[in-house]
């Protein structure tokens, strides 16, 4: 019996890592963007366009690497466009983001019609010597594909860059006090453009993960709301990459757990279990905000505000 429970937990955890990865990429991207003071709620649309681009390029060029790069590039371009509207024209960032989301949903559905059912070489699992053979840790964390392993490096790397390097300091300064940063010689406009573009590129990569690793092909509206979850997870993570990892794993774990509890024959309404990931996000979000009530806020001070240089 104990072995069975152990196997069940390992299966749930492996599913957790898999389900969390696409959301994690989008969340990490949004953290970079928001740290520079730009809010991009258009992740859903960017993920969808990324998912479509990944399939289209992989199908036509037969290279999954180029497919992933193309998804990042298209995400980057969408990010630049968002930055153009928000940084250059000082447009309302929430409105622009929502427009980006609707635009991406429609565009990917329209262009994607020709790619439904097209056979592509999906991103397969690959083993890492030694690590994949470890008991428990191996099947949970090292039985996946390259993009999952990449997150293990990306999270600490991002935390290091944001907190310990000059680039990170510049990024944070622009998000907190753009005028002070500008006075200190930082190019605020350039930093915000770059942060928005890189953040959107990561969201595009997360989208490509959905179509290239998960569903092995394009289907309309494949993101099914995961872009919006990522926007919520940034709040939960209070703009920290490590907390983003925890948040994404909580969300992925709830999905994985509810499906496997059903498969194990637990007699609970699947509607109730299906709400679990979302309820969890709301509860944890509320608790983490409440706990920080008296502590200094971690919201980038200039988040969502247009930057108008002093004349």
């Amino acid at each position, binding site marked *: 019996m104990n072995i069975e429970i152990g*196997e*069940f937990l390992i*299966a749930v955890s492996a*599913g957790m890592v*898999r*389900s969390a990865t*696409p959301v994690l990429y989008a969340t990490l991207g949004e953290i970079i963007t928001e740290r520079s003071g730009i809010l991009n709620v258009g992740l859903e649309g960017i993920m969808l366009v990324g998912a479509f681009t990944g399939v289209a390029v992989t199908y036509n060029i037969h290279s999954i690497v180029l497919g992933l790069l193309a998804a990042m590039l298209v995400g980057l371009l969408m990010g630049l466009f968002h930055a153009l509207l928000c940084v250059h024209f000082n447009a309302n960032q929430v409105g622009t983001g929502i427009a980006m989301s609707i635009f991406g949903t429609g565009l990917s*559905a329209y262009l*994607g*019609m020709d790619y*439904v*059912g097209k*056979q592509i070489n*999906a991103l*397969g699992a690959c083993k890492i010597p030694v690590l994949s053979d470890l008991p428990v840790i191996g099947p949970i964390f090292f039985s996946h594909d390259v993009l999952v392993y990449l997150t293990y490096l990306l999270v600490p790397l991002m935390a290091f860059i944001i907190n310990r390097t000059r680039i990170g300091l510049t990024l944070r300064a622009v998000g907190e006090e753009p005028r002070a940063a500008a006075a200190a010689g930082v190019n605020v406009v350039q930093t915000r453009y770059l942060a928005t573009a890189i953040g959107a590129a990561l969201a595009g990569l997360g989208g490509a993960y*959905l179509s290239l690793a*998960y*569903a*092995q*092909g394009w*289907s*309309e*509206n*494949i993101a*099914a709301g*995961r872009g919006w979850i990522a926007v919520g997870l940034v709040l939960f993570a209070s703009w920290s990459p490590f907390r983003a990892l925890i948040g994404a794993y909580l969300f992925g774990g709830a*999905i*994985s757990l509810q*499906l*496997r509890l*059903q*498969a*194990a*024959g637990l*007699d*609970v*309404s*699947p*509607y109730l279990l*299906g709400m679990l990931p979302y309820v969890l996000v709301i509860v944890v979000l509320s608790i983490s905000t409440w706990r920080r009530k008296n502590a200094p806020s971690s919201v980038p001070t200039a988040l969502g505000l247009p930057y108008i240089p002093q004349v």
Partner: protein
Amino acid sequence: MKNKLMIVLLGVFFLGFGLLSSQAATNSLPALKVGFLCVGPVSDMGWNYTEQQGKVYLEKTLAGKVETVFAESVHESAEAERVMEKMIAQGCKLIFAASYGYLEPVLRVSARHPDVTFMQLSRFADKNNIGTYFGLTGEGFYLAGVTAGRMTKTNKLGFVGSHPVPSTLWAINAYTLGVHSVNPKAKVKVVWTETWIDPVLEVEAAKGLIDTGIDTLAFDQSDSLPIVKAAESKGIKVSGCYADVHQFAPKQWLTGPNLNWGPFYVKTCQAVMDHNWKNGVCICDMGSGVLELAPFGASVPEPVRKEVLALKEKIKSGKLVIFAGPIKDSQGAERLSAGQKPDIQWISKMNFFVQGIDGNLPKN
């Protein structure tokens, strides 16, 4: 000056009128214009795709007589009402409303246009110009179940369900009855995604089932490919639903229901054109020719194919009724007594799991 202007205006008016009437003359060439509403994208390789295929068949078979207007991803709301009004303005005299939730808009539009014929999916309406049709895939699921029951080695089968509503329960129960008719030891496990379409969730649900040791998968989501492809790459046998997608799982495909709406559309259009259409209930099942069986996969051996095809003929001729009493639910209570045969009213209210399904139906 004013008079000259009047003459010019009158001239333009009559010229326009003449042009319009000649336009109307060319427009009236096809005998019937038909509108189709479907709820999702036709690119789903599933339910909505089969509807579009039927439309293509209709256009070919009645070329020159019938013209079609097709609208996909139409929301089950006032949006449907607007789309239908537009179709009627374009001259449609027959409209297929191919989703459960279109009934309310159909009732409103049909009251305003008594000369237009409506075909409503899966819902009854007591109106002279509204007919009802059902696309019953149960018999196809039953035969897929027979195939799966013969092919399984672990006697554990998995079903990824969409929403626990009567039409889905009909599919899962029929599948299980098919499995049990040849393999009483086998158990079917059901996991619900509570979505009609969410590819990533479907794949994760399938993987969750695979972890429990199942070796055969079935599903009823409106998109087919994610689960079929996941099964192929994991080495799990899989059967389809609605459409034939065997080419996506060359090694693991078994068979599945395959909806072929074309002949039914042709028959309905012919009846409307001949003015002998009557409002009633059309059951689109194997006997009617709408429901077919998808081709077998390479792994299905010849004796199993013969057995399943023989059963299919029996179903077609009415000798085999898949839902014949006695039927007990998973709790052991008798739902249909011996000798009783269910009618469409009974099927459209189905709310239980048959015996052989591992687990209980969720209470809402």
